[in-house]
């Protein structure tokens, strides 16, 4: 199971690509899919590499990303 998971709100995404640069693993890429506003939205190209660091969400100017992290076993 991956350490992290993102939920990207496609309708909020404006395809600026800042999250792609912020991610160092790299997980994100443009999907080629257009949302209702016509923006090329970002998706998780390699979801297995996500560690849930949240850098993408910090950088997202449209607050389109929610970050989840795997529970650490007690």
């Amino acid at each position, binding site marked *: 199971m991956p350490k992290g998971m993102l939920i990207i709100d496609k309708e909020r995404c*404006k395809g600026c690509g800042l999250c792609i*640069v912020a991610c160092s693993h790299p997980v994100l890429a443009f999907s080629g899919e257009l949302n209702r506003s016509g923006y090329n939205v970002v998706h998780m190209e390699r979801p297995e590499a996500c560690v849930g660091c*949240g850098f993408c969400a910090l950088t997202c*100017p449209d*607050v389109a990303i929610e970050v*989840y992290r795997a529970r650490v076993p007690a």
Partner: protein
Amino acid sequence: MPVSTEKMVKVFGRPGSLTEARFTYCPGCHHGILTRIIAQTIDELGIVERTVGVAPVGCAVFAYLWYRCDVIQASHGRASAVATGVKRANPNLIVFAYQGDGDFASIGTAESIHAANRGENITVIFVNNQVYGMTGGEMAPTSLVGQKTTTTPDGRDPALFGYPIRFSEMIAQLDAPVYVTRQALYDTKRIMDATKAIKKAFTNQLEGKGYSLVEVLATCPTNWRMKPTEANKHVAEVVTKVFPLGDLIDRG
């Protein structure tokens, strides 16, 4: 792709102080990051019920749509003056003014300086993107020497238009302000630093210390005619040379 977050913990989400409305900013604009940081700070301090924002004229004019706290939309440049009035009428409120460079450092120069000089107990967020964004990319007082804008198509010529104004340095000369700092948002480290600075500026007000100013170097990819990633690089490599980052005064 099926998404399952069943066995996971949410570590980052939309701050509760933000409404569900989508921002009207252009793709890659730093205003959005800053709007989110302020909302997160309001959440962390638990002050949404008694916070009043004062929005400028500029791209952030719709701030009242995005925050769950009260927001007043001031006349161009007068956000610091309106914030002064709100704070003096009800000192129990937490008042922040959110102003761009055209608003704060040009048309509102008098109001901005005198609010700082009186040491009003308010928090001012000053977004410096070196251009008039909303009206179509005209030269701002903070535009860099040689910067091409719609009113300086050959680049800003200091002989004709003067030099970029370092407004925070001017405010830092005064005796009254308690905290004046310049931050940026071009990478995650700067975003985290800016978040800390904004929290400090709000905390100063909560503790009754006085005037705090956080200048934030932001991008305007649309009017700079750059990709968002190029604009970030431009701030890191060019803009910070003219507007150095860091705390100017901290008497908190």
